[in-house]
């Protein structure tokens, strides 16, 4: 294990050094008129609901290109379908690097998927920018993987927030967790346990499920029979909706915390239809993006821009209310800002330097007050959020903006 870290660190550092010293001649993916970047996203298959993470970014780039691009270069963003299979992620990423000669890998989705390509990209000195996963390791392990940086608030930190909140506000409640049996779900669970601290024994039941299960009825029943009063839903949208419905069918109404991946308004509205408004009322989550269906942002400049871009550039069949599009635009906006800072003739080293020295206050798609901030040793660009509560079929934020760490 250690041998690898040493090897990759040395190789990566070597590449970084030669790149920085200008020993390279032409930078792949950069021409006088174009910057070519690429990423993998599950366009088809079980996780295709996340494809708008990539598509949303592509629409923002089209908008930027329509206004002249960056330093007279248009951004060409190639999205390849990995069908949520890490082996295909590996293959397609290689294709992007070796055949399409991209400047950087950008916004690839999935925890295991980015873990699979991380050693390869770092060994070759290809920037792995703004990874589409809340895996803590993408921000934390930068010494071994200097070419990698995450974007969204990491899952462990999110779980910790819920843990601290539960320990503070309902210190005696019996707690249960429904979690997806993979890195994403387990990261949230680990953070939650950490956030509970001494109150960790409040957790009386933990039920895992796999992404290819048809339903989680059995898990929900077990949580109810453990007399859980507070339910943590660390699950993807399909199963989050099911957890509300099956709880409703079992005449059980716990207080629910639902993780941000499943917190989009349209998902909760589907949950209301599947169970009842009362069942979903009071659910708590965190938020860092502006939800396009939230009436609060109806007159907001950022959301107006979002709607204009969607109207002009979106593909047929894509839902403009899908909040993952907003996420995609936010991360694309951050990339564009980093690209501007990378100089008139960007290199892989200069974009990494720009990406690790960000202080952006003007992202139109993030909550007001959120600052996209990075340093070489703090590679969590987004680490602020607010708590929000579902009330009368919409999200209402409460409390202040706090750090999700």
């Amino acid at each position: 294990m250690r041998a690898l870290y040493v090897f990759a660190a040395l190789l990566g550092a070597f590449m970084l050094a030669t790149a920085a010293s200008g020993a390279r001649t032409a930078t792949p993916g950069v021409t006088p008129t174009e910057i070519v970047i690429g990423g993998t996203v599950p366009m088809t298959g079980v996780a295709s609901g996340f494809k708008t993470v990539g598509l949303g970014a592509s629409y923002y780039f089209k908008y930027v290109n329509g206004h002249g691009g960056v330093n007279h270069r248009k951004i060409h963003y190639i999205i390849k379908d990995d069908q949520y299979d890490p082996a295909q992620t590996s293959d397609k990423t290689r294709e992007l690097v070796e055949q399409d000669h991209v400047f950087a890998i950008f916004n690839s989705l999935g925890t295991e998927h980015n873990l699979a390509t991380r050693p390869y990209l770092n060994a070759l000195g290809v920037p792995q920018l703004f990874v589409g996963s809340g895996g803590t390791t993408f921000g934390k392990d930068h010494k071994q993987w200097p070419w990698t940086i995450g974007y969204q608030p990491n899952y462990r930190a999110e779980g910790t927030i819920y843990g601290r909140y539960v320990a503070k506000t309902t210190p005696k409640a019996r707690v249960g967790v429904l979690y997806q049996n993979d890195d994403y779900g387990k990261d949230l669970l680990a953070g939650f346990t950490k956030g509970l601290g001494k109150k960790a024994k409040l957790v009386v039941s933990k039920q895992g499920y796999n992404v290819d299960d048809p339903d989680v009825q059995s898990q929900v029943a077990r949580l109810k029979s453990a007399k859980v009063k507070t339910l943590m839903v660390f699950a993807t949208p399909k199963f989050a909706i099911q957890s509300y419905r099956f709880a409703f069918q079992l005449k059980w109404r716990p207080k629910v915390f639902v993780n941000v991946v499943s917190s989009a308004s349209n998902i909760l509205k589907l949950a209301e239809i599947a169970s009842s408004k009362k069942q979903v009322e009071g659910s708590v989550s965190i938020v860092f993006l502006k939800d396009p269906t939230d009436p609060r942002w109806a007159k907001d400049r950022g959301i107006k821009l979002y709607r204009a871009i969607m109207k002009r550039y979106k593909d047929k069949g894509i839902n403009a209310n899908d909040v993952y599009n907003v996420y995609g635009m936010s991360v694309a906006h951050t990339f564009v800002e980093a690209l501007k800072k990378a100089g008139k003739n960007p290199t892989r080293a200069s974009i990494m330097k720009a990406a690790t020295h960000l202080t952006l206050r003007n992202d139109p798609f993030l909550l007001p007050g959120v600052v996209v901030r990075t340093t070489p040793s703090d590679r969590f660009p987004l680490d602020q959020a607010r708590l929000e509560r579902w009330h009368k079929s919409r999200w209402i934020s409460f409390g202040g903006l706090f750090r999700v760490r």
Partner: protein
Amino acid sequence: MRRALGIGLWVAAVAAGLAVYVFLPRLMSDFHSRDLAHAGVLFIAIVGLNMLTGYTGQISLGHGALMAIGGYTTAALVVHEHWRDVWTIPLAGIAGGVVGLLIGIPALRLSGLYLALATFAFAVAMPSLLRKFSGLTGGTQGLRFLESAPFQVTGLKGTVTVFGHSMTQNHFLYYLTWGIGIVGFAVAWLIVRGGFGRAFRALRDSEVAAVSAGVAPAANKTLAFALSGVYAGVAGSLLAIQTEIVNPLSFTVVLSVLIVVGAVVGGLGSLPGLVLGALFVEYLPTLAGHFSTRAGVPDFVYGAAIILVVILLPGGAGGLLRRAARPLTSWLYTRP
């Protein structure tokens, strides 16, 4: 005279095939070699499945799961025991063969549709089994060579030197995979031409008749299963070596389906068309994608192509080749 000509043509065909194998990478981009190597993986599994389904008539929709056995054997040896990746291939083949044999035994009692159902269920259940034994398999994360055992990966630095020749990693993977594929093809050809092949075909055509002719059904049918398992195991191993990662999601029932489709399109019960079967399965989705990038089109085209081939060309590509060559072969092999 004609016989000599017939043999000469055979030799020429084999020589041409080998020449294509050796020189093809020069004609295309380095990266295409990787795609071809992936097609080679499917080819090996298809050749193995053909021996089972084409020659003994036993349907298996579970060979992707046997590939998983081979792939995970390789991954476990590389990551846990630090074996060099290529040296694990024989063991992966053996593992596949053993599991194939174990499946072949209960398969004796199942036939046709029932066997298809049972092997289908095996393929669907495999990812769960892979996730469960996470100490060995890495669970949902799978096993990643580059992270846990990078020095065991051949071609880590991008070039590989074999017998003094230096080549890129992609080329190495192509030569390795298709080299094994050609050897496997030759072995299958020998088996099929020999006594086993005759016994297999007899069992496929009429088991009762075959038994009364002295063919031992149980031994031959399980042997066929074991053999096809060896091929699938080797194919799985090569897949793991190429992608440097194994993960439950890489071995879903879709993989099993692709192998069967490739065998049917290539032509069951004959060998020559199988290369085309592998190429069909590998490249058709990409070609369909060029047609239109709108969601759903590649799937539709792929499915429609499968149906059309099966309806219009029941013997698959192999049958077509044979029909096309018939004027020549009948001229060669009939007495004047």
